[in-house]
């Protein structure tokens, strides 16, 4: 009996349980981690490789600045119209969203009572949660007709009568167009700026506020002089994150922008973005050069997103106001 017991205690755990198990576990974790690394690299490589035919045929800069996108007759492709569309809609949305997003953050973090700020924060997060196709279907059936009838047509008629020089800038008031897409984008990116800004506001040390209050500052003066300057890193990072979202937003934009592939784009008139042209034409692309051109547009979209993302990460790390966020 006693012999048996000692034996049991002295028996060392099997290799599979001990050191070998550790090796196997570590190696499988590393393999999974490396597959994540390779996925990101594969995205860059495969987009470049699949688009290389178009890029070599029209040249790296030639494709970038080519203004012609003709999949029907001359088979000439250039990404410039889509780059103009992407840059103007996303910068426009960023400009429109900046002040409201900061205002909501100030209200939730500084003014609202606890229960109200909780509700508003959840509602703002809900905006981010609504799928872009759902916003798109609302845009197609509700927002576009409304903005066409109440804003675009009256403004267009007014400009015809009073300022004929403006009409080429305004363009056809058909509802589907750059302005509609930009406004919808504005609504969609506000939550990202707001979330990071609120986080940054909450990280401001109490002493910072108290010092400003002690000097006799009013509530707004405290916010303007002590809170906002202190959290500018978070605000900037949130803005870059929103810009990244606006650049990559696809479905709502594809449904509302009107999809016109030739410059010049006008304010009310249709346009298109890099993401929207990929989603609209990829299924219908018959010619090989058309397909590779779309892949090449994807490659340039990758490069632009990469720059924006790395800039956001750099700003976030440099100011180090908040840690990494999962979402």
């Amino acid at each position, binding site marked *: 009996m006693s012999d048996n017991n000692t034996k049991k205690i002295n028996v060392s755990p099997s290799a599979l349980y001990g*050191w070998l198990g550790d090796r196997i576990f570590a190696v499988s*974790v590393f393999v999974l981690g490396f597959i994540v690394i390779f996925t990101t690299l594969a995205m860059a490589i495969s987009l470049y490789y*699949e688009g290389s035919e178009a890029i070599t045929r029209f040249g790296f800069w030639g494709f970038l600045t080519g203004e012609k996108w003709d999949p029907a007759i001359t088979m000439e492709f250039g990404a410039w119209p889509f780059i103009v569309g992407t840059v103007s809609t996303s910068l426009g949305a960023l400009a429109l969203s900046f002040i409201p997003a900061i205002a909501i953050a100030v209200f939730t973090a500084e003014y609202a009572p606890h229960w109200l700020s909780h509700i508003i924060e959840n509602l703002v997060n809900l905006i981010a949660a*609504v799928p872009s196709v759902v916003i798109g279907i609302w845009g197609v059936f509700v927002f576009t007709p409304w903005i066409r009838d109440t804003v675009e047509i009256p403004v267009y008629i007014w400009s015809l009568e009073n300022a004929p020089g403006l009409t080429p800038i305004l363009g056809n008031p058909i509802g589907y167009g750059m302005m509609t897409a930009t406004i919808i984008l504005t609504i969609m990116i506000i939550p990202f700026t707001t979330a990071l800004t609120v986080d940054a506001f909450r990280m401001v040390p109490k002493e910072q506020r108290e010092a400003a209050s002690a000097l006799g500052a009013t509530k707004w003066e405290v916010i303007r002089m002590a809170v906002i300057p202190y959290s500018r890193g978070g605000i900037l990072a949130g803005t870059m994150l929103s810009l990244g979202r606006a650049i990559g937003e696809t479905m709502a934009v594809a449904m509302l922008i009107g999809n016109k592939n030739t410059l010049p784009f006008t304010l009310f008139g249709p346009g298109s973005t890099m993401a929207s042209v990929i989603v609209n034409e990829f299924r219908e692309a018959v010619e090989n050069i058309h397909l590779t051109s779309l892949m090449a547009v994807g490659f340039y979209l990758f490069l632009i997103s990469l720059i924006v993302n790395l800039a956001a990460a750099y700003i976030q790390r440099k100011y180090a106001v908040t840690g990494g966020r999962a*979402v």
Partner: protein
Amino acid sequence: MRSLRSRYARDNVVLVFIILNTVAVLIPLFIILGYVIVQGFNYISLDLFTKELGSPTRNMMGEPTGLVHTIIGTAVVDIMAVLISIPFGIGAGVMLSEYPDHWANPILRVLNDTLNGMPAVLKGLLAFVLVVKPMGSFSGLSGGVALAFVMFPIIARATESALMNIPWSIREAGLAIGLPRWRVILSTIIPAAKVGLVTGFLIAFARAAGEAAPLVFTSFGNNYLPVKWTGWIFGPVDTLPQRLYNLAISPYEHWHGMGWAAAIILLAVITASFAAARFFIRDKKQE
């Protein structure tokens, strides 16, 4: 120095401006939700859950049409995406948090965040290149892979932060009683962090379930139920977000109504998973 009265007046002006802005942003949200709920309920019917869509003429002939193939297809593609993304997401998260000295960790962290920030449409292109082209046809599997690309960066990040929240002393306690490292991670760290992990899955799922852009050229869409069950995986499959897009841009009145119905189903699924995530977080805070 301005008078105190004017400074207080400016305070009030600013407050009014801020409240107006807040209201102005929330109004569109309520309008969107209101339209989706009212219109969606108008068009929801039993046929929607029992019949397939078929060709546009089917409705003109007066036959019942529905989205049953879309609802099943969404479930199939989403489940595949979850099954594919969980090992990679958890694996990368464990690597970042449990093996912090590994030389590849800074690269992994940066590239994982890069992938997370990439537009979903590019993830669809990647799945097209990696799965659709070699297999030679659009398939549910490629849709699952595309959505997995959306999910695993989020899961990896959530896993990392959930595991990081567990104090090192617990790991040391496990190692001190002679447990091997893998056993410490699997039996103490991951169970202790399970609230954070589940929240991460739910958020990742909610993000992926609403994406249509990666599915348009991977799972492609299909108006009919597949003939054999393998059609769900290896054939073109319909999914709610992509079908919603096709319905909304179609020229048929009846299909527009079905688009609203699809919108309310999609919105319900996503709000439910977000609400569940919120619920888990709240539970954790109370503990």
